[in-house]
């Protein structure tokens, strides 16, 4: 393993399985990279070095490593995932006083059962109510392609750690775009699975109706490898679907034959920068995508917005009453406003959600996947409040999720693929029908093979 910073999980696992390198050697090298790069990128809020060494030794002691698809693969998790022995801070100051978690989040357990090695916890926007990757308590996670720029949020540390070569696999969460936005800004692949596919047990929630967990990686195969070992029913998450395991790795190389791809028009082109449209059109062209209209996407985004702010407020109501001054002020003010929304408007949002789901699912009778931009712009500067498009000034925070919110609103699986524009990459969403992560991953893999999608390597 000559270049640990840009090795894929698949390459590391193969090298560990064959005995070319030990899991402990990989771990030590990765920890050294984290030590060197984290002071610049601020992706990690905790490095679990001793735990990682212990786990790596345990992997090395396994006689049949072929049984471990992620043998010795370092990974890290957004700090809303429970990590045994640490308080689950979820990007907040308030949660630092919580008791240390007594066991890992289930997805961490499943990755480690496959041989992966947890190296730490990752920075995030407070309580996941964020699209920037900034954090008033821990400082902003920084974009590996330009540390003066945002990672995107709220899984900003995950984007920074993967794009910055500090781990090949990371976990994040996505309520309105928090996997797809940092994937786009940091130039990496991200998978937001179908709502209910991956168990959320042992993670700090935000909006139960919309919360998803999923992986980030620099290759599609690594997304698929990690996603496959994390599947499986878990009664501890009330939303987790009781479905059989549906492996995706065996189908990655099936190519595009038989797949009908569409590209979202209308709403999904409005407000997009030339970079976002250029990346989308490039991908659409190679996939022969025809334009399709996703009906009422604007209303869908609005309904997602209201469900988010009200469920978020409900979750934090008691903390708002007793510890209001310990919140990030921007998060606090949004949540207080959310607590004041009449419940009738929330019920109407959920009524609309069912209508919209049926309307969008009907589109999948004529296509297998729909393309859309992941973000309207490439990474803004840290602290930037507005961006200007066609002479119109728009707030960064509210608009980074413009194209992701109407999709997670109805739980569709999405792979965000990076288009390596210069100087900054930008992502495209590949949206599939519910439970068809395999389709989105197959298309992403085909784009990667064609060289249209790739995680660009930053000069670090």
């Amino acid at each position: 393993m000559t270049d640990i910073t840009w090795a894929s999980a698949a390459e590391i696992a193969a090298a560990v399985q064959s005995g070319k390198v030990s899991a402990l050697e990989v771990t030590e090298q990765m920890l050294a990279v984290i030590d060197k790069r984290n002071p610049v990128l601020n992706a990690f809020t905790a490095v679990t070095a001793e735990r990682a060494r212990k786990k790596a030794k345990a992997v090395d002691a396994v006689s049949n490593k072929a049984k471990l698809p992620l043998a010795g693969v370092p990974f890290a998790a957004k700090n809303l995932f429970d990590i045994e022995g640490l308080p689950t801070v979820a990007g907040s100051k308030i949660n630092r006083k919580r008791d240390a978690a007594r066991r890992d989040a289930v997805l961490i357990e499943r990755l480690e059962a496959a041989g992966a090695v947890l190296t730490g916890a990752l920075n995030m926007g407070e309580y996941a109510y964020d699209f920037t990757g900034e954090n008033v308590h821990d400082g902003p996670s920084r974009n590996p392609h330009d540390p003066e720029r945002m990672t995107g949020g709220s899984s900003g540390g995950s984007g920074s750690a993967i794009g910055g070569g500090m781990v090949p696999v990371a976990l994040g969460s996505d309520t309105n775009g928090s996997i797809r936005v940092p994937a786009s800004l940091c130039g990496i692949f991200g998978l937001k699975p179908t709502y209910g596919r991956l168990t959320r047990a042992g993670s700090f929630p935000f909006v139960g109706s919309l919360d998803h967990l999923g992986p980030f990686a620099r290759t599609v195969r690594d997304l698929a490898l990690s996603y496959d070992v994390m599947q499986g029913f878990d009664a501890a998450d009330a939303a987790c679907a009781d479905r059989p395991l549906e492996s995706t790795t065996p189908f990655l190389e099936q190519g595009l034959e038989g797949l009908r791809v569409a590209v979202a028009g209308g709403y999904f082109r409005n407000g997009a920068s030339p970079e976002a449209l250029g990346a989308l059109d490039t991908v659409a062209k190679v996939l022969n995508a025809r334009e399709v209209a996703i009906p009422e996407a604007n209303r869908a985004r609005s309904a997602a917005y209201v469900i988010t702010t009200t469920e978020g407020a409900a979750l934090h109501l008691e903390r708002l009453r007793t510890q209001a001054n310990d919140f990030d002020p921007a998060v606090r003010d949004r949540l207080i406003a959310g607590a004041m929304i009449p419940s009738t408007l929330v019920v109407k949002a959920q009524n609309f959600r069912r209508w919209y789901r049926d309307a969008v699912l009907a589109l999948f009778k004529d296509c297998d996947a729909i393309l859309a931009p992941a973000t309207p712009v490439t990474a803004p500067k840290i602290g930037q409040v507005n961006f200007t498009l066609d002479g119109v000034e728009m707030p960064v925070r509210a608009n980074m999720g413009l194209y992701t919110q109407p999709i997670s609103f109805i739980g569709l699986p999405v792979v965000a693929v990076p288009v390596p524009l210069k100087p900054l990459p930008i992502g495209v969403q590949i949206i599939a029908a519910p439970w068809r992560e395999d389709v989105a991953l197959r298309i992403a893999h085909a784009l990667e093979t064609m060289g249209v999608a790739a995680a660009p390597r930053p000069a670090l």
Partner: protein
Amino acid sequence: MADKLDDFIDAAAGALDLPLEPAWKSAVKANLEVSLRHAAAYADFPLPDDAEPAPIFKA
């Protein structure tokens, strides 16, 4: 509307026992205005009376 919303925010903060320091109020109001604008975008969308909300409880 602006005055009514100010009154509503004061009343809601009191009724819900939410802290609302004077310095926070303009930001809370701005956020509430945004949320209510979003709500207005779908609240008038015509749906039949028997339209079910998305999350259905199963016993």
